[in-house]
């Protein structure tokens, strides 16, 4: 069958780039240096993840994506006040 012609990469490329740029900046400037005191990249992540949920076709990968989505909601028992991904 050759290369994947219509991959999630093509539909979600821009959103992925936006998320990666934000993540790399956050990781390099804050997280890896031990500083983590506010939410970062949540909006970018959610847009990118939403696009993947619509476009990712490989079943095994979809399962990982959707299972993670179910367990991710921050109001489900997380200590939001100390989380870098606080949605409050």
């Amino acid at each position, binding site marked *: *069958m*050759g*290369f*994947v012609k219509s*991959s*999630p*990469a093509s539909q*979600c490329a821009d959103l*992925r780039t936006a*998320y*990666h740029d934000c*993540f*790399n900046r956050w*990781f*390099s400037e804050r*997280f*890896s*240096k*031990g500083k*983590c005191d506010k939410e970062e990249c949540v909006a970018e*992540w959610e847009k*990118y*993840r939403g696009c*993947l949920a619509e476009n*990712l076709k*490989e079943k*095994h*990968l979809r399962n*990982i*994506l959707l*299972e*993670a*989505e179910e*367990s*991710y909601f921050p109001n489900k028992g*997380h*200590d*939001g006040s*100390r*989380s*870098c*991904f606080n949605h409050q």
Partner: protein
Amino acid sequence: MVRAYKHEHIYRHPWDRVTTASWRKFTDPDTPAVLSHVLDVHTLSRRLDAASGCLHTVRSITVRSPSLPFFLRRIIGGEAVVCHCIETSVVDPRARSMEIVAVNASLRGLIEVEERSSYQPHPENPEGWTLLRQDTSIRCKPFKALAAVAEKVEQRCVERFQQNSVKGREFVERICKYLEAESSAAAAGATAS
């Protein structure tokens, strides 16, 4: 049969820089040129654990699969060209440790590859150097692979056999009609004589 090998590498850079670089390995603009086997990378989940402060991430890394023998390629089909790997990582910025486990999700009937990587400050120079330890294990599954190959070959044989059976029956029909015609002609000749 399992093959396992270890490798260590010293980056003469601090841990935060090396781990940052590690995240960018598959998503840098130059990645397609340098790592041409990598076709696609996606983040499937990420979670920051509030209690431990650890970042948990799962990514899919799609690579061009290694060349397979031609007969396996024909039997397995086009899916063999693309192989999905799942990379799970945990970063602990307080302990300065990054652990990554990557396994192949495709072609597992034939081969299981697991690569464990660990980035930590180098004990001889924790502020300036980073030690990467990698453990890789590759396990081929010859018996399962042969069974899969055998099943495919068997299926093809069955299809071919059935096609041949139909042709064989039709041919026998044709011969029967020929023999019938020949017999009628002979009988007509005998009657006439």
